[in-house]
Structures are given as structure tokens and as C-alpha cells.
């Protein structure tokens, strides 16, 4: 098994900096999701790790040895490209066996391994098919099987599920995660879908404009975002402009003071402008407006079956609150309600 260290990796294309100072230590067998909006440099980072692009700065350590300048074809990695990059001139079995053929593995062993892999990705008996005879989900599995054929030390995937429809995508997320846990291969998956990251990852690396914003386990990143960008990108979050008191004891939002309690996270300078981040499930509604409540008007109610989503307007801000159906407020659109934010779940971020 293999640890992976990214040590100050950077990439410039001409004068454009696509990635700057990416540093992360990835433990052996971890499932890492690179998460960020389109164009933030996720693919570039994956290509640096695979050696398909030389880094402008920094080093890459694989299992403790410096492989920054090891040619791609000597790295023994597996990779699933965004386009899948299956060979149209080869059958499914020949595609999966390609890395073995390149390594001159004997034919019998090759055939046996291909059968194993087809079983693994649940495509038994499909070896003789041509690539164009497969559905999107099946191609996906072939690409994954091909990437795993040599028992790679590091398995890289670039948005492998983005082309699939929602149902199949969720199914494949769970399957891929189970497969990875069974094999214990150090895996890095690129995605711009935060749900996908939350479903699969041991570690999430959030990137914006070529810079790492936060690294951590998904729930920690969700509960304790490092900044307003992360809070808004991972899950939905209500971001409210506020002021943090000089002692950092309370925040002022829309002229209401909210006392902070233990468990609330403060990452802003006391006595200055800040952003209060509240998850929709942490917004509590009451039919009457108490003294410490934030007054708001209900603008829309969406019944989503498993949950209810209430849109609210409180003057300067619009908020979203979600709750289970049994906690559905007895309020109509246009009703005046009071808002409370669950104590211990409030995050005060630098603006």
C-alpha cells in the first residue's frame, strides 16, 4: 500500500497559474476527493500526479520516494479519464488486459486476470463485446477494471461518473466506494459534485482558483468550513453578513444580537465584519417573533417528500430552512415567523 505526498505542487501555463502550492499528505488506502468548481485546476492536479504534465514547482512522493520526474509509463498507476479513453479498436477484454499485455504478462495469466476483473466490476461474460456495444454505465466499469488491472499503487479518476444519469451515478458511487475499500488502493477522485465527495471520500480537498481551501474528512469540512467559499460549496449554507463583537462573545445580524455558545466555531477576527454560516437544517422557525428571534417572512414552501424546504426573507438576507415533514411549520406564504439558529452549529467566518 502506498502513501502519497504532494509537496508544494504548482503548475503555470505561460503567465497563468493553474495550481499553486498544493501540499497534502495522503495516507495509504485513503479515498481522496478533489472537489471544486469547474476550471479550478482539479484535472491539472490529477495530471501532475499521473506525470502527464511536469509540475512547475514542488515534489511528488509516492510511498516515500520522490517520483516527481518518473516518466508516466514507469509509475504503475491506474487512471480513469474523464472521456474514459477506452480503445475503440480493442474488445472489452483486450482493453482491460492492455496494461498486462504491455507488461508481457503470459496469455493464460492475462485471461484469468481479465475474468477476475470482469467479475469485480460485475460484467461477467462481456469480454468479447466491442466498446461501442456497451452502455455508458458499462463503459464506466470497463474503464475502472482497466485502471485496476495491474493492482496500481495509486488509482486516479477524473470525474468518472459525470456522464451518467442521477440514479446510476448514485449507484456507482456506492459501488466504487465499496470496491475501493475492498481493494484498499490509495484513490484520488476528481469531482465538482459535493454530494459525490461526501458519499465516497475519507478526505476531501477543496480547491478554488488553483489554491487549496481546506483539507479534511468530509463531515468535518461540512461542519467546520474554513471559509465562506467552502461553506457555500459543500452542501448548502445560509451566509449572512454580520459583525463579531470585540470579545468574540456574540455576533450582530440585522440589528439582532446572537450570543455564541460553546460548540459554535469562530474563525473571524473579533471586532470586525464577518460572515455567519448556518446550514438550512440548523434554522429553526417559531410562529411568533420573540425578543431574541430574527424576524422573517415566509416566501415559499417546497414539500420535497422526505423534507420540507422553507424560503425566508429577513430584510437584507434571504435564507433557506429545511426540516423533516413532521416538523413542518404551521405557516402560510407571507406569514411572519421568528428564526433561531441551533446553538453549537453556528460558524463565524472571515468575510
Amino acid at each position, binding site marked *: 500500500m502506498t502513501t502519497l505526498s504532494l509537496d508544494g505542487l504548482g503548475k503555470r501555463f505561460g503567465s497563468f497559474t493553474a495550481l499553486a502550492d498544493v501540499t497534502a499528505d495522503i495516507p495509504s488506502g485513503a479515498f481522496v476527493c478533489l472537489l471544486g468548481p469547474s476550471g479550478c485546476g482539479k484535472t491539472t492536479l490529477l495530471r501532475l500526479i499521473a506525470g502527464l504534465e511536469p509540475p512547475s514547482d514542488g515534489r511528488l512522493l509516492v510511498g516515500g520516494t520522490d517520483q516527481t520526474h518518473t516518466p508516466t*509509463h514507469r509509475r504503475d498507476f491506474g487512471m480513469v479519464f474523464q472521456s474514459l*479513453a477506452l480503445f475503440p*479498436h480493442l474488445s472489452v477484454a483486450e482493453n482491460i488486459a492492455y496494461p498486462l499485455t*504491455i507488461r508481457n504478462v503470459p496469455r493464460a495469466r492475462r485471461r484469468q486476470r481479465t475474468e477476475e476483473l470482469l467479475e469485480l466490476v460485475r460484467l461477467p461474460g462481456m469480454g468479447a463485446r466491442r466498446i461501442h456495444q456497451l452502455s455508458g454505465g458499462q463503459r464506466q466499469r470497463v474503464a475502472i477494471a482497466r485502471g485496476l488491472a495491474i493492482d496500481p499503487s495509486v488509482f486516479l479518476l477524473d470525474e468518472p461518473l459525470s456522464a451518467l444519469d442521477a440514479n446510476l451515478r448514485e449507484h456507482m458511487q456506492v459501488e466504487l466506494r465499496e470496491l475501493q475499500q475492498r481493494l484498499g488502493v490509495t484513490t484520488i477522485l476528481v469531482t465538482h459534485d459535493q454530494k459525490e465527495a461526501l458519499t465516497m471520500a475519507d478526505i476531501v480537498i477543496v480547491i478554488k482558483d488553483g489554491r487549496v481551501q481546506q483539507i479534511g474528512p468530509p463531515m468535518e469540512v461540512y461542519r467546520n468550513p474554513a471559509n465562506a467559499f467552502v461553506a457555500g460549496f459543500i452542501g448548502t449554507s445560509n451566509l449572512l453578513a454580520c459583525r463579531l463583537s470585540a470579545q468574540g462573545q456574540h455576533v450582530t445580524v440585522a440589528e439582532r444580537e446572537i450570543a455564541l455558545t460553546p460548540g459554535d466555531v469562530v474563525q473571524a477576527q473579533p471586532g470586525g465584519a464577518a460572515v455567519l454560516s448556518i446550514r438550512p437544517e440548523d434554522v429553526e422557525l417559531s410562529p411568533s417573533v420573540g425578543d431574541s428571534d430574527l424576524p422573517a417572512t415566509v416566501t415559499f414552501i417546497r414539500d420535497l417528500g422526505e423534507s420540507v424546504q422553507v424560503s425566508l426573507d429577513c430584510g437584507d438576507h434571504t435564507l433557506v430552512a429545511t426540516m423533516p415533514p413532521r416538523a413542518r411549520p404551521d405557516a402560510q406564504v407571507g406569514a411572519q415567523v421568528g428564526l433561531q439558529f441551533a446553538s453549537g452549529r453556528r460558524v463565524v467566518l472571515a468575510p
Partner: protein
Amino acid sequence: MSSNSLHATPGWLALLPAAVLAVLFLVPFGIMVGVSFAHRAPGGFFEPGFDLTSYARVFTPFVGRVIVTSVTLSAAAATICVALAFPFVVFLTQLGRAAQTVILVFLLAVLSLSEVIIGFSISTLLSQTAGIGNLLVWLGVIDAPQAYTPSLFALLVGLCYLGFPYTVLVLYPPVARIDPELPEAARVMGASPVRIFFTVLLPMLRKPLIGALILVFVFTLGAFLLPQVLGRPVHWTLSVHITDQAIFQSNMPFAAAMAVILLLVSLAMIGVTLLLGGRERGAR
């Protein structure tokens, strides 16, 4: 998608090019076939008839040898052109946009050179008095300048010069269209650049490569000037003899009969090439 666009275009539109083709190609071809059976009149002309004399002359060991020479020369030129142009095009597509454009424009410019100019340029370049022999002497490689023309080597250089730009232009679009992630995927899976060339690019481009082979083969089969300028008389191809008979010996029926045979031989060679290319695919 392609079947959609086929249906979107009314079929009768194809009639126009078909008619043009019939008038410009089939009619002269018919006349040529007619002439090949014509009766040669003593005054250097011919009169219509059904005379097999010309074909009798075609099926002689001499013309047989000439046909073998022609086919071998063109096949060699086609093979060399494709063998050189294919790696060149792969390299070309990896360059930047600007560099690609410059090189493609340069190759297009080469296309505007006629067979005559190419023939005499290469003849001069390989001559004893003004050729590269002098350069080699100056470099100390050889003692005295020598002529490298006329020779088989000079002739092949000429034919390849003629065919190379066409080969590049035929191969460029399909090579450029290959998803760059395919060779990259092969690289991640452990293939060296040479293995990628033979296991990914070559098999994926079999059809365009066969097309390029056929194009250069047919194209150089028609060359009638280069063999005379750069080759020895043993390298004279059927095209040279056809020109000779038609223009200098005024034997139109014999020239026409040889032209018909040349066409049949080309078609046969193309058929064999396609068959070989297709069979390999079926066997996979």
C-alpha cells in the same frame, strides 16, 4: 448522425456529379477502350475495327516486365511515403497550432511544383558537377564527386518527393482527430512512446493508412517524366511506354491497350490492398 445527414440530402443531388463524372471520365475511357481495339493504319493513324493485335503485343515478356517494374516502383514509393509521413504527422499534431500551420502551408506549396521541376531539381541535386557529391567531398566523406542519377535511388527519391505532401495531407485529419487522451491512457498503463505508436495509433489508423498507400500508389503509377529524368531505361514504367507509343511512335491502339491494362492492374492492386486490410480486421 451520419445516416440522418444522408437522409437530409436529397438523393437526386448526386445525379449532377454523377453526370459530370460520366461525361468527363466514362466517355473518354470508352473511346480509349474503343481505340485499343482499333486497326492501326500505316500512315500513323488508326481506323475503327476489332483488332486484337495491340493486346497481343501487350501480353509479351517485355511488357510484362515493364508492368512488374511499374507496380514495384509505385508500391515501394507508396510504402516509403507512408512509413515516413505517418510518424511525421503524429509528430506534427503534437506541435503548437502556429508551427502546424507553417508546415502544412509549406507542404501545400510543394504541391504546386510540377513533375518537371521536381525531376530536374533532383537530377541537379544528385549530379556529379553540381550535386551533393561535392558537399560530401568538402566534408571529407568521399574522395571525388560522383553522380547519383540516373539510378533507382534517384527515381525513388523523386517519386517519394511527389507523393509525400499528399500522404501528409491525407493522414493529417484522421491523426489530428484522435482523442489525445487515448495515447495518454496508454502511457499511464505503462506503454512507452514506441509501444503507443504500434498498439494504439497504428491499429486505430489502419483505414486512413491503407487509403494513403492506395493514393500514392495510383498517383506515382501515372508518373511518366520522373522515370525518364531520374531512372535508367530499365526503370521506365508503363506510363513512360504509353507516352512513348502515343506521342513518338504514333501507335494509338497499342498505347490505349497498355493504358487499359495499367488501369486493370491498378484496380487489382487496390482490390488486393483493401482485401488484406479488411481481412485483418475481421480476424480480430
